[in-house]
């Protein structure tokens, strides 16, 4: 059983604000899902290589060179920014003055 404290910790790691009601419900639901995952413990996979890649992939490199974008494209991107000043994206203060 996953505790309420654990839910709060994970929610903070995940950057999610949850209401008290959501925390309660989440605890129950996650517990039953994690119980279901326990079926994997029946298998001994200690000697198995994990399958991070399914197809033969290799690193793809490109030159580290800035690409010039036309103004229309830049405007399209900036038009989606919630808070900006000129062509700069505004963020919250992260260092105290």
């Amino acid at each position, binding site marked *: 059983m*996953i505790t309420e404290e654990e839910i709060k910790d994970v929610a903070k790691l*995940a950057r999610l604000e949850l209401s008290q009601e959501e925390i309660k419900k989440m605890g129950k639901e996650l517990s039953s899902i994690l119980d279901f995952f326990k079926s994997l413990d029946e298998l001994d996979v200690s000697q198995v290589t994990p399958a991070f890649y399914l197809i033969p992939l290799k690193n793809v490199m*490109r030159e580290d060179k800035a690409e010039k974008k036309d103004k229309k494209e830049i405007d399209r991107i900036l038009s989606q920014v*919630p808070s900006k000043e000129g062509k700069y994206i505004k963020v*919250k203060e992260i260092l105290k003055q």
Partner: protein
Amino acid sequence: MKVEDLTIKKIHRGLTEKTFSATELTRAYLGRIKSQDEKISAFLEVCENLALSQAKEVDDLISQGKEISLLSGVPMAVKDNILIRDLKCTASSKILENYQASFDATCIKRLREKKAVFLGKTNLDEFAMGSSTENSAFKITHNPYDLNRVPGGSSGGSAAAVSSGECCSALGSDTGGSIRQPASFCGVVGLKPTYGTVSRYGLIAFASSLDQIGPLTKNVEDSQIVFEAIKGKDPLDSTTVETQSLSHSVTKSLSDLVIGIPKEYFGKGIDKEVKEAIEKIIKKVEGEGARIEEISLPHTKYALSSYYIISTSEASSNLARFDGIRYGMSNVKCQMSNLLEGYLKTRGEGFGPEVKRRIMLGTYALSAGYYEAYYLKAQKVRTKILEDFEKAFEKVNVIFAPVSPTVAFKIGEKIEDPLKMYLSDIFTVPVNLAGLPALSLPCSEAKNLPVGLQITGKPFQESEIFTVAEFVEKIVA
């Protein structure tokens, strides 16, 4: 014009023989949407202006006597997690409710080059997380066969739109069955291509090692045409690989074929009617000369756990980008909050319950102390599942199985119980874990609702799947 009966080749013939113009055709589909979508609710947005301007381009080409491609003027719908420049792309989430795409997904770019027509964006489970399209923040889509039932998910809008004749074909995305299961529920053809075949650039990411874009169509021929148009290596998605142009399939007739039937897919959990419907098709195909061989995929029962651990882990990482700073819903303007509070509030308000649940699960599975017990273990189990398929394909050409253990279920039937909903994906997730191509073919009915046959092939052998599917399509017609 009865647009419900049109396929890509019929449209092409109509356009080139000037039976109808692309504009007339597009208007007919827009009319069909107007008359049908009030009850189906497949579309989140209909882009009439874009569609009519694209249709006009095709009409101009025709009047200039230029040759047009098979897809020119073909009215398509696009799942709303695939970006079309200057249209909204919401992923059915409040957090992207007003987001307008600043670029085209690669598959969209390729369809534009063929002069396909985009009618609009279709409903989905929020961020493609779900099996019924009920997790959309905006609306519930209804199954055209029975309006009280779900169309499946997460590409439920696309499947319902094709099924009800609101578009000729559509794009969806499949992470754990999200093309095949709604195709099965709505009686259309759905293809999940081999991982790495279709570029994911411009697809809003859910689980990057599993996601693939693919077509939902009326028949197998259309599926192949759309697939060929969107596939291919893309410098903007480094996991895409160069595939040969569809090499001619080695199968010339059904008697060349060995079909594997995995016994694990016909045991506990499957509805009796679905099981009987699939078994009947297998008998028919055997009667036509194919060799049927029982096979075993012994790790099937572990696939669902492995899938939900891997997909939620990847999702928790992918969805970290929704921070309310660069785009999407935001409360950064709120003077009171600091950086952390800005994140917490934006995401707490913007994401719906299923998305929060999966982010939480994934964050938990990846967190210190749990990584080895969950994520690493799931990736190892994935290896076992992959090996099961490799072994099976040593002696069979394709695998036949049901797509879903049930027919379309009732709206509201599973939404309150997340685990019950996850179990709907039991027959589709192994294919994603193994990266294989698989097609859902409408082959029968049970309880007056469509049943899909899942045809799985070897990696990059879509051509084999299409050939086999066309054989079966003829048999069941």
